[in-house]
């Protein structure tokens, strides 16, 4: 896995466990394979997706592939100028 | 005041334009086509929109779209086209959208013929589409009323957020009479409380007819029925002709009422106490006035219609069968004749006790 130097702020996805319907589209499209379906069920009964915690490159694939409007946000750090 | 000799169908377009109608959507059908022709000519002259739709279904749905934006919109057709519009009329009613539909009735069922008939009464007055809805129904009897009741139809449609019909027949559509032009014109104002017109002000609004929840759907149905009850209290309209001392009242609307009026005069000339009760609103049916007439007892009603007793059934309902209700009718494109009405009036007067 392509580790970024620790002092450079990294992009990261935020998955709302409640909104995820566990379809797996984000897992399928993540080029870095840093998303996974967990075993834990949310209040609506879905085994929601989790971010493994590191390795996101901010490609937004998961955001666009996710059909649920409120399930995924992606944080992108400010661009260096 | 200006008067012109004008065709009934043309008078509808005059009324629509002075009422501030923004758009007309139609599809050709005899005997309503002149409304489309005249709209094609006149609407653009006043900057209004007219589209010849691909079908009556499309036309009524274009009306649905225009009505969604809060504008005054209309369509016109005859029986076969009204059948196709029924889906859209149910949706308009479910979404509480105001619109005006003109039906120039011809003979049916099926393709029938283009002669005048009044066989669309049930379809229009009872609602030809699905669900617990009603439409306001106005029944003109002359060219003047083709215009004036079209104007009233727009006012009522927007006042109650309902579909308002102008229900006429081939004779009224095709005949020419003098029309006194309206003295004023209306500049309509969009009701931003419910319209969706593509502006910031109405962005939060939604026009829909779905309630997935049964209780919500029922509550909406009750709300509609409450509205209809108010309409029934407020909007009944009728006209009485030589009714004060009548023992027999002819009940007729539209062209049949005019023929019946002639029969009243002829009967009176023979000393028969015959009068005419003419509903101007078919929904709400003017039952209060009709009940008042039959209340003293000893009176009889004769429904004169160009249909199979559809009006008669409503008359019976309106008066709770409080007195005998007879039927003189023709169908298929034929008109009732004064002679038929007169003959029946004589017969009834005789059997009612030899009164003269």
């Amino acid at each position, binding site marked *: 896995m392509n580790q970024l130097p620790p002092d450079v702020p990294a992009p990261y996805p935020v998955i709302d466990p409640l909104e995820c319907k566990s379809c797996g589209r984000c897992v399928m499209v993540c080029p870095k394979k840093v998303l996974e379906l967990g075993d834990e069920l949310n209040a609506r009964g879905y085994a929601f997706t989790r971010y493994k915690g590191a390795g996101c490159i901010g490609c937004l694939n998961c955001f666009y592939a996710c059909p649920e409007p409120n399930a995924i946000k992606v944080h992108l750090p400010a661009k260096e100028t | 005041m200006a008067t012109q000799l004008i065709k009934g169908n043309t008078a509808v377009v005059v009324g629509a334009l002075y009422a501030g109608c923004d758009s007309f959507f139609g599809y050709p059908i005899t005997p309503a086509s002149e409304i489309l022709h005249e709209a094609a000519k006149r609407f653009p002259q006043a900057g209004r929109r007219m589209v010849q739709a691909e079908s009556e279904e499309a036309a009524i749905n274009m009306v649905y779209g225009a009505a969604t934006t809060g*504008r005054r*919109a209309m369509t016109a057709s005859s029986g076969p086209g009204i059948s196709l519009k029924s889906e859209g009329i149910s949706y308009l009613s479910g979404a509480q959208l105001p619109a005006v539909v003109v039906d120039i009735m011809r003979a049916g069922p099926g393709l029938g013929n283009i002669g005048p008939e009044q066989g669309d009464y049930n379809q229009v007055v009872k609602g030809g589409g699905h669900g617990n809805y009603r439409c306001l129904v106005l029944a003109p009897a002359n060219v003047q009323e083709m215009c004036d009741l079209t104007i009233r139809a727009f006012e009522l449609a927007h006042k109650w957020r309902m579909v308002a019909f102008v229900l006429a027949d081939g004779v009224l559509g095709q005949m020419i009479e003098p029309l006194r032009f309206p003295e004023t014109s209306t500049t309509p104002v969009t009701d931003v409380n419910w319209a969706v017109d593509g502006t910031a002000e109405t962005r939060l609004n939604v026009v829909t007819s779905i309630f997935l929840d049964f209780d919500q759907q029922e509550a909406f149905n009750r709300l509609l029925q409450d509205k209809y009850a108010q309409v029934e209290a407020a909007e009944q309209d009728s006209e009485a002709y030589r009714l004060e001392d009548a023992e027999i009242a002819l009940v007729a609307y539209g062209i049949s009422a005019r023929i019946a009026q002639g029969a009243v005069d002829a009967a009176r000339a023979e000393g028969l106490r015959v009068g005419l009760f003419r509903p101007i609103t078919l929904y709400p049916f003017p039952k209060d006035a009709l009940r008042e007439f039959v209340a003293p007892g000893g009176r009889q009603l004769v429904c004169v219609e160009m249909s199979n007793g559809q009006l008669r059934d409503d008359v019976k309902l309106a008066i709770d069968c409080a007195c005998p209700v007879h039927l003189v009718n023709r169908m298929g494109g034929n008109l009732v004749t004064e002679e038929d009405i007169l003959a029946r009036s004589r017969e009834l007067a005789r059997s009612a006790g030899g009164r003269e």
Partner: protein
Amino acid sequence: MEQVVQTRGLYKTFPRKGGAAQTATHYCPGCEHGVLHKLIGEALADLDLQDRTIVISPVGCGVFAYYYFDTGNVQVAHGRAAAVGTGISRTQNNAVVVSYQGDGDLASIGLNETLQAANRGEKIAVFFVNNTVYGMTGGQMAPTTLVGSKTITSPEGRDPVQAGYPLHMAELINQLRAPVYIARVSFSNMGKLRRARQAIRKALEIQRDGKGYAFVEVLMACPTNQKMNVEEATRFVAEQMEVEYPLGVLRDRAAEAVPIVRSESDYAKETLDRIFSLDTDRAPDAQLTPDAPTFRVKMAGFGGQGVLSMGIILARTACQAGKFVSWYPSYGPEQRGGTANCGVVMSGTPVGTPLVTASDILVAMNRPSLEKFLRDVKPGGLLLYDAAMGEVTPPAGVRALAVPATRLAQEGGSARAANTAMVGVLAALGGFDLPERAYREAITCNFAGKDAVVQANLAVFDHARAWALEQELP
């Protein structure tokens, strides 16, 4: 500054949905309807179009699109979105109309509305979800179902002999001249999804600029009814649907297209009065004169003999003279080639029935008409018939006069005005007691704007009237 990429153009919560989960869509897990919603919403937000936009929710799984789009919303009948969009767009020139439809809705029940709106080039962006089945109703065959595909209503697979072939909507619409933009897209990999995003944006830019019709077909599966997980669904789209329905931009005329501007309504009474020429074309109001006799006149002849306009001239004359009057024609196809007739009633009191059954006067221009209507002439009534049909023996009590109408018209200077000649004869012998001025006004009005025709008809009228005044009625 850190940027957070999140859904835009859709509501944050969905209270219209009701129930417990008002932050989630009603779509099945993995269904790409939500992806399309997000892309449309994002483009609307980026283009700053939400205030101007009205999204049309169809009947199908997209029926509740109005739960989500933060725009004006309208829900419509199955298949009728294009017609509703037409009505909206025609009345609100500035509105951005977005129609969101499935394949049952757009390509089956609404095919006519779809093609006709496209052909008129309506200002609508259509987003067409082709998922090869009817989703909402439980997976029936759609017009777009692939050959061999099993659905509930094609349990052995779609058989083209029974059910035809998959309908290619983008290609069909590409046969029409008016559409500005036509594309077919899918989300089956991220490159395709990004191209889809561009196409959606393009369709909405065209609406922003009021340039006309844009059609974006979006291929997707229905994981629920096709019983597929998202990987199988994605493969189905990529390996089967995209083979049948090739992706691409079929047309892009956005650059050349010019904005379509609809007229503004003019509500002024003066405008309407002018349109109807109320300053020049006006008649006096009828005067109540109960003692004046009522005349019921029947006129009949071949279509093309001017029978109907003869009646209108007479009615107009009576109207100009302050009578109550009506005119009622035979109408419809029978006018063509066949016989035509009309009835004119003039009276000192409001006209009851406009029908002329028993007539005071019959004007017959041909023999079939004569035979049809002669028996309805009242005793003491008058028959005027065209002399060209030869001798006629009227029933007892009916006065009859043969009128050489065509000759009188020729002599008067206009061979085509036999009907006006009859009016001249009626003026002399009808017994109406209408002022000559009224006839002249009626003729002038009837041919308004055609001065030479007016003059010719007035001449024929004068000549025929003079002729008639010298005739002896029996």
